[in-house]
C-alpha cells in the first residue's frame, strides 16, 4: 500500500490524492482556457483576439 497523505483532515492514499489534485487542476485549466480562448465576453474577446488568431487552431469569428 502506498503511503497516505493527510489532506483537509482526510487520510487518502497518495495516488488517489494525486488524481484528485490533478483532476481539480485540469478542471481549473479547462475553465481558464475556455474563458481565454473561447468565451465571447467583449472585454475578454477584444483583449485576446490577436492571441487567439496567433495560435492558428483556435476559432474566432
Amino acid at each position, binding site marked *: 500500500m502506498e503511503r497516505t497523505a493527510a489532506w483537509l483532515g482526510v487520510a487518502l492514499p497518495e495516488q488517489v490524492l494525486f488524481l484528485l489534485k490533478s483532476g481539480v487542476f485540469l478542471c481549473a485549466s479547462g475553465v481558464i482556457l*475556455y474563458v481565454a480562448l473561447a468565451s465571447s465576453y467583449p472585454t475578454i474577446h477584444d483583449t485576446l483576439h490577436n492571441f487567439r488568431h496567433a495560435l492558428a487552431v483556435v476559432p474566432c469569428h
Partner: protein
Amino acid sequence: MSLKSLAVLLGFHVSFFFGSPSWADDINIYLKASPRLELLHPYSDPATLTLLVTGADGKPVAQGRVAIGLEAPEPGWFFSTDFPLVEGSRLLDMSLPLRQGRAEWKYLFPIRGPYRLNVEFIAPDGRKVNKTFPLAIRERRQKWFFLGIFTLGLFVLGVFAGRIFTGALSNAKRRAAACLLVSMSCASWSIAVAAQGVGQGKHFGWLEIDHATVGRPSKVRWRLAGEEKAESRDVLLTLTIAHLEKAKTVFSVERLPVEGEFGMNFQFADGAEYRVTAIAYVTGGQMIRTEQNISVTGVEPPARSMIPAIGFFLAVIAVGLAVGRWSRRAAPS
C-alpha cells in the same frame, strides 16, 4: 424502337463523343498567381490571380467570359482554422469578361488549406468549357511556432504541477500549489445600407450590398444610374473591398469593362468593418466614385470547433502532470 428514335439517339451519341469534347479540348485555361501560391498565407497579402484562355492555335481567345467560383477548404479532421464558419463555404461567384483572353482580379485568402477555383469559359456562341484549379494556401510558420511555444508552456506547467502534487504537501508546496492556479490565470492575461452615390455630372454610381454575415456570401452590386440608358453605357469599373482593421485589400478588379452594371456574390470572411469602393470611368471622361462602409456581422464559432483545441491543450497539461509525477518519483528529493 422506331427509326426516328434510333436516329435521335445516334445523333446524341455522335455529338456527345465527337462534338463538344473536340471543341473543349481545343480550349485551354491557365491560371497564374502572383506572388506564387507557395508564398501566400492567410490574411497576408492579396494574390493577383490571372486566367488566360487560349484556343487551338495557342493564341488568346478574342471574346468570351469566364464564370468564376471559389470554394473554401473543407474543415480539417481535427483542428479548426481561425474562421471555422468559412470552411467549406463559397467565397466568390462572379463573371468577368475576357480582355485579350485574360481576366484578372486580386483576392486575399482568409484561411489555410486547399481551395477550389472553378472556372467556366463561356464563348460568345454559348459553348462552355470547365476547369477546376486546386489552390493550396499554407499557414504562416510564425503561427505554428507560436502554437508550439504555447503548447510547450502548458506542458511545463503540467510538469511543475505534477511534481508539486506528488507526495505529501509541505507548507511551502501547499503555497506553491495555490500560487500555480493564480499564476495560470495571470499568464493567460499577459499574453497578450444605405447606398451612397457621389454624383459628378450626368451619371452617378449606385452600390448595393446585402446584409453581410460571416459564413455566407452576400450580393455586391454596382450599377450606373442617371441619364437614360445609363444601364447600357460602357464603363471601366474598378471595384475594391478593403478590410479596415487590417488595412488590407481583400478583393479588387481593375478597369473591368462592364455595361452599366456589375454584380457578384462575395463572402466577407471576418466579422469586421469593410469599405467597398467603386470607381467607374464612363466613356466621355467622367469618373464616378461610389463608396460604402459596411459592418459585417460576426458569428460565434460553434462549440464543436473549440473542443479539439481545448481538448488538445488539456491533454498536453495532463501529459505534463504524468511526466512531472514520473520525474519526481524517479529522483525523489
